[in-house]
């Protein structure tokens, strides 16, 4: 999957180094249109047996031969989900997390909702209680990863270049570099964007959407896909409510119209309000992740 918008995969960086490309250069099949409109693939050899090692054979068509002007058009049924490749990578990530008892949260919001500050406070509060690693997604700079490392957790920065979201392949590559501990907590801070990250499963246990009270109450209605994809909403910066006209009840009501099962925690990273409930929720998730591997270790079903 191309992980960027508009400029190709070459701009995606993990900790400043180019992302290993899932598609090898030169593997893209290309063809040229001649002036007479006939297609000519290159490299073009007369090796038979269809497409082998990227070599295209014109004799492999339905008619068994190729002659200019004679159409070999046919229909091919595909029925494949556009996001299938991303979902395959996400499934691999998810398998790894569940085998190692890693509780993984994908934190999504618009830019400026206070995700990084919330992460810094969360890491400080869980210091010595849980092993935590962080994957930071931003278009540019490793400022956020530096803030997380200063808070005491290993962090890896993914720069998506022109890209508007993290995808499962990027996260898979980042995981390998992070050396995740068993029974740990992995926090993935997605690119600040309430639209695109909704569609891309990273293999996380839960998506957590953060809405700050300095935004509009109707954001869940304006960006419904993200609120539908999330399991938990953190209503952040609640310490500012006395100074704003923001109707917190209405925001929660709107969010639950989109997603009736959405759990909501009112929180303030600055004042500490709601932090205990958020930390309890994380601790319960971590316990469940560990309990799940212990259950699967019981010799009931033998997995090949």
């Amino acid at each position, binding site marked *: *999957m*191309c*992980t*960027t*918008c*508009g400029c190709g995969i070459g701009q995606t960086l993990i900790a400043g180094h180019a992302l290993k490309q899932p*598609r090898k250069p030169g593997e*893209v*099949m*290309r*063809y040229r*249109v001649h002036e007479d409109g006939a*297609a000519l*693939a290159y490299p073009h050899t007369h090796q038979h047996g*269809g*497409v082998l090692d990227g070599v*295209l*054979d*014109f004799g*492999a*068509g339905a008619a068994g031969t190729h002659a200019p002007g004679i*159409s*070999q*058009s*046919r*229909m*091919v*049924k*595909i*029925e*494949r*989900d*556009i*996001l*299938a*490749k*991303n979902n395959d990578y996400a499934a691999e990530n998810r398998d790894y997390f569940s085998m190692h008892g890693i509780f993984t949260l994908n934190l999504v919001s618009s830019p400026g909702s206070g995700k990084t500050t919330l992460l810094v406070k969360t890491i400080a509060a869980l210091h010595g209680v849980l092993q935590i690693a962080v994957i930071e997604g931003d278009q540019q700079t490793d400022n956020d990863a530096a803030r997380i490392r200063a808070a005491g957790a290993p962090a890896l920065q993914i720069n998506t270049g022109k*890209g*508007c*979201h993290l*995808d499962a392949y990027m996260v898979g590559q980042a995981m390998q570099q992070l050396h995740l501990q068993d029974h740990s907590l992995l926090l993935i801070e997605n690119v600040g964007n309430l*639209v*695109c990250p*909704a*569609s*891309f499963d990273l293999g996380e246990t839960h998506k957590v959407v953060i809405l700050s009270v300095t935004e509009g109450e109707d954001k*869940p*209605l304006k960006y*419904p*896909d993200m609120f*539908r994809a999330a399991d938990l909403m953190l209503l952040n910066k609640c310490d500012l409510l006395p100074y704003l006209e923001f109707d917190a009840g209405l925001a929660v009501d*709107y969010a*639950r*119209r*989109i997603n*009736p099962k959405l759990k909501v925690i009112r929180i303030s990273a600055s004042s500490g309000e709601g932090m205990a409930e958020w930390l309890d929720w994380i601790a319960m998730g971590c316990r469940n992740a560990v309990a799940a591997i212990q259950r699967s270790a019981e010799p009931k079903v033998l997995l090949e």
Partner: protein
Amino acid sequence: MHEMSLAESVLQIIENTARKQGYTRVKTVWLEIGQLACVEQESLRFCFDVVMRDSIAHQAQLEIIKTAGQGRCAKCSIEMPIAALYEACPNCGSYEIHVTGGDEMRVKELEVE
């Protein structure tokens, strides 16, 4: 603008199938896009043309089959067409609507040679 990534994924699916099916040119691509899918169709058309350039689907025609949004009310169990994710049940007014169709994004069929 994740439509660019989606268009790249479509190309990847086309290329992978080309290896198995042995075609060298794609003339038409049919995508099935649900009304509730998180994709902007005009943006996808633009990205499709850009991404397919110089590939085996160069200048391929893009046909989008739109599927209607469908939901079922969790309270009163009636089925209904829905145009957006925040619509209320026309029968009981509940917002607890489960999407049962119209959120798919699929490469359905290709015309190849």
